């Protein structure tokens, strides 16, 4: 009886010291804590991976007005209005709104986009004071939809945007693996 009583005490003390040894070893290890937001060496946004699903953004220069993203969104937070310009017979995007407050950052909309126009950024600090300001309106005035040109005469201005867009699209797995696997074995 007395033996097991003191045995218990001995066990408790030794195992506590075993635990404390682990804790003590952390005094000489590199700390893992990141003191967000004011004491980070680089902005957190810049350290996030390319696939990070932050607040959505649209590059209207390369948006074809295909509405694939609007259809893919399960909660209808994208609203696009596309009209046909009678004179030039081109597609005219007159409204492209995304309700950031409703969006759940699932990534289903950026997946079917053919040019990578709609994409997630690494921006995540979106707090604001009113719901109204959460609606991102990307079309200040009606703009012609992007039409891939058939020759080499792509507007040099949009080539970097297009490259970024295609890089984004290529991250997604293609059905049946039409593009080469991203990683070698």
């Amino acid at each position: 009886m007395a033996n097991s009583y003191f045995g218990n005490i001995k066990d408790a003390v030794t195992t506590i010291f075993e635990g404390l040894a682990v804790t003590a070893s952390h005094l000489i290890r590199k700390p893992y804590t990141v003191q967000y937001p004011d004491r980070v060496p680089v902005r957190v946004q810049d350290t996030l991976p390319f696939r990070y699903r932050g607040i959505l953004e649209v590059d209207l220069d390369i948006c074809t007005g295909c509405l694939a993203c609007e259809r893919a969104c399960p909660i209808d937070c994208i609203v696009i209005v596309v009209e046909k310009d009678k004179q030039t017979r081109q597609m005219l995007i007159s409204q492209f709104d995304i309700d950031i407050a409703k969006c759940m950052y699932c990534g289903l909309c950026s997946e079917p986009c053919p040019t990578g126009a709609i994409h997630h950024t690494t921006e995540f600090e979106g707090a604001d004071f009113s719901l109204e300001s959460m609606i991102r309106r990307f079309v200040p005035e009606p703009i012609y939809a992007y039409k891939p040109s058939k020759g080499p005469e792509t507007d040099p201005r949009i080539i970097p945007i297009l490259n970024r867009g295609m890089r984004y699209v290529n991250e997604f797995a293609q059905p049946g693996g039409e593009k080469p696997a991203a990683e070698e074995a």
Partner: protein
Amino acid sequence: MSLRTEEMTLNMGPQHPSTHGVLRFVIKADGEVMREAIPDVGYLHRSIEKIAEKVGYHGFMPYTDRVDYVCAMFTNQGWGMACERLGGIEVPKRGEYCRVIAAEFNRIASHLLSVGTMGMDIGAMTPFTHAIREREMINDLIEELCGARLTFNYMRIGGVAWDLPPGWREKALAYLDHFDPIWEEYNALISYNKIYVERLANVGVINLQDAIDYNLVGPNLRGCGFKWDIRKDIPYSVYPEFDFEVPVGTGEFGTLGDAMDRYMVRIREMRESSKILRQALKQIPDGPVLAKVPRNFKPKAGECQVRVESARGDMGWYVVSDGSAYPWRVHVRTGSFAAMGMINKLSRGLMIADLVTLIASLDVIAPEIDR
């Protein structure tokens, strides 16, 4: 002879730090001993099953993340598998491997949270920070894989949405090399601590017959010494290709089926997951990761039931299709709900302070109870 005092009714929750979400218990206590603890569920009911009938098969995938946000890969996989079985879609081999890799990482993360909060709930704060640190590293890996840390939405009907990024495999293997010694360190830190063992051993003992009667699953059932793991017993995905053990409770610290056994099963399962991951990362074949599924996915009328072994045990997905683009009925069967049903029985005669031990040892996750 026992001395009785006036019965006291206490309310615990719904916002209590140790109830793992929004849970409420009505406790009838005699002094410090509970006569019963009646769980009151429903605070996190979000009609997820009904939402499925409105958003269609592809659009429901992000919602499955919310069924159990601690191990969302398994809910993703369950939904994906149910739709694939309805539509007769075959997932490419590499896709299945990607799924298993993501899911097993998620299992480690989920168990880390479980064993970490276990310590916190009974008053040991340090192990929690250790467990969370390891979990953060897994979250970083998964973030690189699919862009999110908690609500992954990684899988799609027919495979996964993103292939492994270049260099990810090496990072994952490096993490596993780092994780295995950490596992030993964590055990030295808390698992074999005498005071900790005393708090858990012989508390909330479940005998096997009760566990089966109350439909317990996963680590809770295995803690009673019964070897039942969907990955082994009703194999799905590519699990038959891996060599791993199913840890069961042994009663080494007290009675078989006590809280310590359930805890140790989780600790050992992390080891096994790490083993599966090493094999999967080594064997992963080349090829596509996503099958061709039409955007307007309409399975034939019919019904199916699939089971996946999530971190909280056997998770069942029952889907009825009427041939349209929207499921007619979806039902999710989760382990936490069954575990909640048993708390009342187990709490009789337990000290009030042991109730949190009991809840933590059953690893109940509030959103999974109600959906």
